[in-house]
């Protein structure tokens, strides 16, 4: 494959290690946390019963840690919805020459517990762009890393999301 055919334009490579969008903050409510746990079918008492959480050594009601990736999702005007239901311009800023992005996998380091009522700030950086060739043609494997920090300035988690763009 020649350079001109690459799915990764040079300006996309320049964004590695830079912030993707602005840092965002959100306060996690009990209802939001428990809705997620109900929807996942995970009824661990540490998410629902404060006494059980304290008995297990926590300082309060715990938030299911995999919720972290979703607490910053804002609503958007309906006219910004695309045909596939996703919002327009979600990937803007990276500028890959692709039409579709799929969730490829994820990794989390959980450093400290996350509690109901915590205000979490997320900073996302582009960490990797790798062009590969699969059975259905070329694709780009992108890695984004988000650092989650609580209201006490402590990093509670780091999440890495792998996406497959083609």
């Amino acid at each position, binding site marked *: 494959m020649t350079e001109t055919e690459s799915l990764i334009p040079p300006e996309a490579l320049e964004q590695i290690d830079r912030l993707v969008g602005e840092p965002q903050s959100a306060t996690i409510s009990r209802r*939001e946390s428990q809705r997620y746990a109900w*929807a*996942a*079918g995970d009824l*661990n008492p540490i998410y629902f019963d404060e006494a*059980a959480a304290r008995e297990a050594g926590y300082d309060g009601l715990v938030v299911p840690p*995999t919720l972290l*990736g979703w607490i910053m999702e804002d609503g958007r005007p309906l006219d910004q919805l695309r045909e596939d*239901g996703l919002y327009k311009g979600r990937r803007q800023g990276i500028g890959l020459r692709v039409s579709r992005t799929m969730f490829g996998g*994820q990794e989390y380091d959980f450093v400290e517990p996350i509690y109901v009522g915590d205000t979490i700030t997320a900073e996302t950086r582009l960490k990797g762009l790798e062009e590969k060739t699969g059975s259905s043609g070329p694709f780009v494997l992108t890695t984004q890393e988000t650092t989650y920090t609580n209201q006490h300035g402590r990093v509670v988690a780091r999440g890495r999301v792998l996406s497959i763009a083609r």
Partner: protein
Amino acid sequence: MSQRYFEDVHEGDELPPMVKNASRAQLFLFSAATQNPHRIHYDREYAAVEGHPDVLVHGPLQGAWLSQLVTDWAGPKGRVLNVGWQNRARGFPEQDLTWRGKVTATRREGNRGIVELEIVETNPEGQTLVPGTATVALPLRGS
């Protein structure tokens, strides 16, 4: 939920399997809880446009299940330190999706024990949907 202690865990141990079978309503609720409007998770007709025979179980829902497999096994005083997974094949609603885990390494670290797990989710045909890993800290007996 009972507590698991580090001394009772050995390399090669298998976790009790966990079976998940998502209804379409559950998928809808997970879309809502994560503010995910992607139509492939609730609109079967549209899912066909993207080449899927049915709506799909969300990749991140399977990540939540992986985390649950580990926290349920570890017990309330266990602490999950890391989880990672890939979504290799499509999961569909109204299908038994079975989660299995195996202890691949153990080590003592101060007043707790660290356990490494290898995890796999399979569909009823035995196909791997999600391979994953987790690291969990367990208390020591009497600590």
